[in-house]
């Protein structure tokens, strides 16, 4: 990776961190659990890295590690989003019937 790319990526990192801080600073405590498990699902984005590590023609050990990485990241993504959805489906306003 050349120096220019490195600086570019670090720049993106810096802006994302500030964005993340701004996004979350005002959240009612009743939403903390869904928020935590929802953002936890986003951290499963490492699935992209896992998929990319499985280039064809790789050594067997690499393929095993990559497959395990895909499986683990998928647990994080699928489980994280579903569990959050299940929780949020229960939050309802007064007068709304059972869903």
């Amino acid at each position: 990776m050349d120096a220019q790319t490195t600086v570019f990526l670090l720049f993106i990192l810096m802006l994302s961190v500030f964005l993340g801080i701004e996004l979350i600073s005002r959240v009612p405590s009743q939403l903390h659990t869904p928020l935590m498990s929802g953002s936890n699902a986003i951290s499963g984005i490492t699935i992209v890295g896992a998929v990319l590590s499985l280039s064809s023609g790789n050594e067997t050990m690499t393929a095993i590690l990559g497959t395990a990485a895909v499986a683990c990241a998928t647990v994080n993504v699928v489980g994280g989003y579903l569990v959050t959805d299940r929780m949020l489906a229960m939050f309802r306003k007064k007068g709304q019937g059972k869903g």
Partner: protein
Amino acid sequence: MISPFLIDVAYIVAAVLFVFGLKMLSKADTARRGNQISALGMLIALVATLLYGGMDYTYILAGLVIGGGIGLFGAKTVAMTGMPEMVALFNGTGGVASLLVGWAEFHQSSTEIAAGGMTVFSSFTLGAIFLASLIGGLTFTGSVVAWGKLSGKLPGKPMLFPGQQVFNILLLVIVLAAGIAFSLVGDAGDPLMMAKYDIFLVIVVIGLILGVLAVIGIGGADMPVVIALLNSYSGLAACATGFIIVNKVLIVSGALVGASGLILTTIMCKAMNRSLANVLFSGFGATSGGAGKKNEGEARVITAEDAFLVLEAASSVVIVPGYGMAVAQAQHAVRELGDMLEENGCEVKYAIHPVAGRMPGHMNVLLAEANVPYEQLVEPDDVNPIIEAVDVCLVIGANDVVNPSAREDEDSSIYGMPIINADLARTTFVMKRSLGAGYAGIGNPLFFRENTRMLLGDAKDSVSTLVAEFKQA
């Protein structure tokens, strides 16, 4: 094959959806839609990545099917009370995935170098592999220990051995030194380069050990903070992975999760009036001192029948749920009691402390499951100013979050923590299994107050008895 430019555009779309998703997750009205939007972003990112081509799709499919199956099963079968440990476990899988990606990339490059190939990582990339593997591994074992503590498979009490702090710091120094050695680039014949794979394995092992040691010393009552922090770590691990493979969507999303997790952690710490360092290193509840003054006086016990008579006459009731409600699975019975009280012309509110339960917002989830409308769920700041006008404050399985020592007793280890001032209500009923100390092992003078009555026994049974009384009346 599709052009890398279009894939990058898809990544931008995915990142935008993540940002909007997180934004919407922070409002009750839009939260569910926000989560779905964020899931759509993930799907777009995944499909776009698959379009790069040149990958071994059999392996990918195998991974997706296995992981998807496990995730689906876990998410569908977990009970609402078991949610904290489930979130911890899912979080751990994200961490270990980052570790495995780092390992796979490093392993592939090592074999290619050994075969005389040209793939040589820069120090920067090696540093990213180091961070992804270390943080990923630490997140994994830390989450597993948190899962064990939350599900009761490990003792909730902090487990500390003499010299643990020194040992932890020593490990940290070693792993940082190993990380620097690992990141150096030199000639292939250099002994340091020959030992690179061994150094990597040392880093992985130390990362895994550090995760265990970091969480094992933290008490069950502090788990909300720990889960929020581990969540932040798994984001950082994904971010580091993004630097390994030079992928912008990983960096952006990982950083978003890392930063938001850190903010959530800080909010949790504030709610307990403790610094993050204090939570991480003190072994709360295990240390001596801080137990506060001896409780004096005698607790007054009341029967459910007598409690019913008071509740029937009350015109305002505040219910304060805690972890005990979750353990007794009493949320449905509690909601039924709330409905009965409302039918009786009484104003009912549920006062929820931010750290009640074992996960931030744990009580909100349980009461939502029982169909309590979220307008009725209020925070301590909303209820404390009016608590003195409340006829009955019903404490169900909560203890430390209503402990007046936090307000009055400077020697207590929880002094200064914002609490719900249940003791200031006209009458306070405390539902509790026995007269023992709370989870954090601190005595609670609330139980001995003039206006406090103890309703002993299983919370669910007690609440059900009250509901039955209302039905008869």
